[in-house]
């Protein structure tokens, strides 16, 4: 029976791959342990929260009122007043060196005029070379001073303070606005694709470079069997990775899992196959491992990281590029993993993403098989 023979051939290839992996314990260690260690480390790093912004204050007034204003900044979790100087010119070196990201400039006569009922303006300078922190920091500073002004009005005239709107802002899904719960699933997705795609991108080109692909060619092994035989052992390792990183996310970072674990695992498996397929595809279109590395890193991993919505929201991108992001499998998986973790949604909401991911995975595997056939024949 041809089917059975094919199965046996594929199994032999898998066996060979596993033997090779066993012989190279370092690869196995790295591939299994590194993602866990990296997630432990990077899960803490990947936070876009802006906290403890170092602020230098130019207090030209040196009055009780100016000290009260500085206190407002110091008491807020968002700012840390690191230095207090006297004139505006003195803030420049702090911002240039990057030891302060923001500067608060209180003009001379601030306290006196405030006491006399004259409205005062304080200047807040932000270092725009990190544009995100600058925007967020300025936002915090503006609302902090607005709230302080409100309290000053209330002290003077309670009736005036009562007039007006009272914004009550409620944040859903992530009330403490911790970016960690949002980023840890993202780092998980990123690590999985980096580790598995790198591993499999070397799989076939390695045999070509070492000359053993010729040997495989003279065996009756077919193209589909070659791809399958390479895919399954790596998928097995990838699966171990999946279990480990999800465990770290849940048990260590305690990212709330509001949706179904089974669904998460199932869709992660689809994603894993996509990543492996991508790597194998890269492997079939490269002549040397170095080429495979370049192709994988620059053409696939870099765009994936930046255009998938991992950190930079897709909705902020220009229309043309938004359309381009539909080509990126990580985009779909991010929606899935964040949806299941944070919103607890199920397949009824996520089916478009799941379908797109599956189509992507099957497509890239078919392409890999088709490409490898040309080289083998």
């Amino acid at each position, binding site marked *: 029976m041809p089917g059975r023979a094919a199965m046996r051939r594929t199994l032999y290839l898998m066996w060979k791959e596993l033997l090779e992996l066993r012989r*190279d314990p370092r690869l196995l260690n790295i591939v299994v342990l590194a993602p866990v260690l990296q997630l432990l480390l990077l899960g803490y*790093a990947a936070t876009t929260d802006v906290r403890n912004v170092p602020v230098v204050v130019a207090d030209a007034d040196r009055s009780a009122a100016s000290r009260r204003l500085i206190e407002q900044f110091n008491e807020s979790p968002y700012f840390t007043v690191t230095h207090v100087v006297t004139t505006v010119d003195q803030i420049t070196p702090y911002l240039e060196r990057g030891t302060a990201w923001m500067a608060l400039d209180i003009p001379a006569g601030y306290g006196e005029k405030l006491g006399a009922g004259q409205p005062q303006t304080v200047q807040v300078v932000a270092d725009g070379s990190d544009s995100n922190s600058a925007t967020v920091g300025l936002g915090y500073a503006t609302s902090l001073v607005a709230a302080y002004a409100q309290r*000053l009005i209330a002290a003077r005239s309670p009736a005036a303070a009562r007039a007006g709107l009272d914004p009550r802002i409620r*944040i*859903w899904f992530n009330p403490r606005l911790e970016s960690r719960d949002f980023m840890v699933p993202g780092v998980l997705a990123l690590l999985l694709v980096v580790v598995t795609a790198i591993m499999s991108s070397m799989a076939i080109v390695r045999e070509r470079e070492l000359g053993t692909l010729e040997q495989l060619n003279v065996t009756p092994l077919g193209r589909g069997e070659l791809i399958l035989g390479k895919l399954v052992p790596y998928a097995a390792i990838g699966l171990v990775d999946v279990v480990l990183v999800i465990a770290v996310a849940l048990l260590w970072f305690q990212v709330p899992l509001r949706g179904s674990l089974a669904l998460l695992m199932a869709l992660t498996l689809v994603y894993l196959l996509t990543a492996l397929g991508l790597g194998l595809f890269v492997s079939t279109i490269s002549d040397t491992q170095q080429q495979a590395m370049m192709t994988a890193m620059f053409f696939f991993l870099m765009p994936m990281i930046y255009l998938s919505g991992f950190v930079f929201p897709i909705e902020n991108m220009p229309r043309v590029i938004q359309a381009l992001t539909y080509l990126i499998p990580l985009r779909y998986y991010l929606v899935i993993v964040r949806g299941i973790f944070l919103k607890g949604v199920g397949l009824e909401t996520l089916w478009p993403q799941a379908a797109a991911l599956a189509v992507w995975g099957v497509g890239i595997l078919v392409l890999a098989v088709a490409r490898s056939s040309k080289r083998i024949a």
Partner: protein
Amino acid sequence: MKKALAVGRKEFRQIVRDRRTLSVLLVVPILFLLLFGYALNWDVRHVRLAVDDQDHTTQSRDLVSAFVDSDYFDLVGAVRQDQIRGLMNRGDVRAVLVIPSGTGRRLLAGRTAPIQVLINGDDANTATTVMGYAQALLNGLSTEYRLARYPVTGRPPVTVEPRIWYNPELRSALFLVPGLIAYIAMLTAVISTALSVVREKELGTMEQVRMAPLGTLSYVTGKSLPYFLVSMISSLGIVVVAMWLFDLPMRGSWPLLVLAIALFLAGGLGLGLLVSTVSDSQQVAFQIAALVSFMPTLLLSGFIFPIASMPVWLQVTTYVVPARYFLVVLRGIVLKGVGLPIVWPDMLALVAFAGVVLGLAAVRLRREWA
């Protein structure tokens, strides 16, 4: 030195012959700059907003138009209370403005009118920005209503005048360029060097190299020189293209910039060599190199995620990530126009990093060759 040049020439010929690698190294970084320079930004605009207006008065309509006219929010439509959850779950709207009935009456009577804004917080960064917008809008309106009634006592005694230095329009291309250079230099330097050395081990040509009358030092210099040059060209290419297309101001001195890139690349090459001494196959080398360069440069350098917000133990860890210093130096030279008097501590750190990894790599290589 001659021997080193000979190895360098051989390596260079290999790179040139491999058209794809060369074009990837030289052209793709600039393509990325174009793509990312336009694509990536933090400015949150066009926030999809739904409105649940239970009041239906002039005042409530004023509120809605204040949001819509702000060009931060796009009105998706009016919703009822029970539709909100579905819309938020699917991500169809990011924010919902809820105006309770009685708002208009309260405002006219000079009483406090609570207004609710619901924001989807899954992306904490965007949510923070949206929250800032909403707060600023509502505060502004609130002041108007208060002033209409209490022209004197209702005036806010303190206001903020925000100023942004170095990148006043907060263009993301300006903030991306230093990060991209760090990223690309790190990748080419670390991964290419590691792979090119391990490749010789794997293909067995390492034996030939060892038998040749060639010292470790000349071999290593020769191996890394071509990658050094290619990375340098592509880094400077990024700066030039960014100046031309994105009006990147190059405010500091060019020699200092070249020196900083050279120091950073030296560290990267050293790291690559070090990786090559601990791996026997390119597969392993690629994994290790990606894990020590790719991820830390992205996540621990302060490029995207501010270091000050990390836990203290992790902040300490970032001191061993060379990209951290490199970013400070680059942003300093390019955007702030500062010189050595300001950036010397970070330059020194780059020197130290390069020295340590190159030394370690030399020790390990010598042991391997002995």
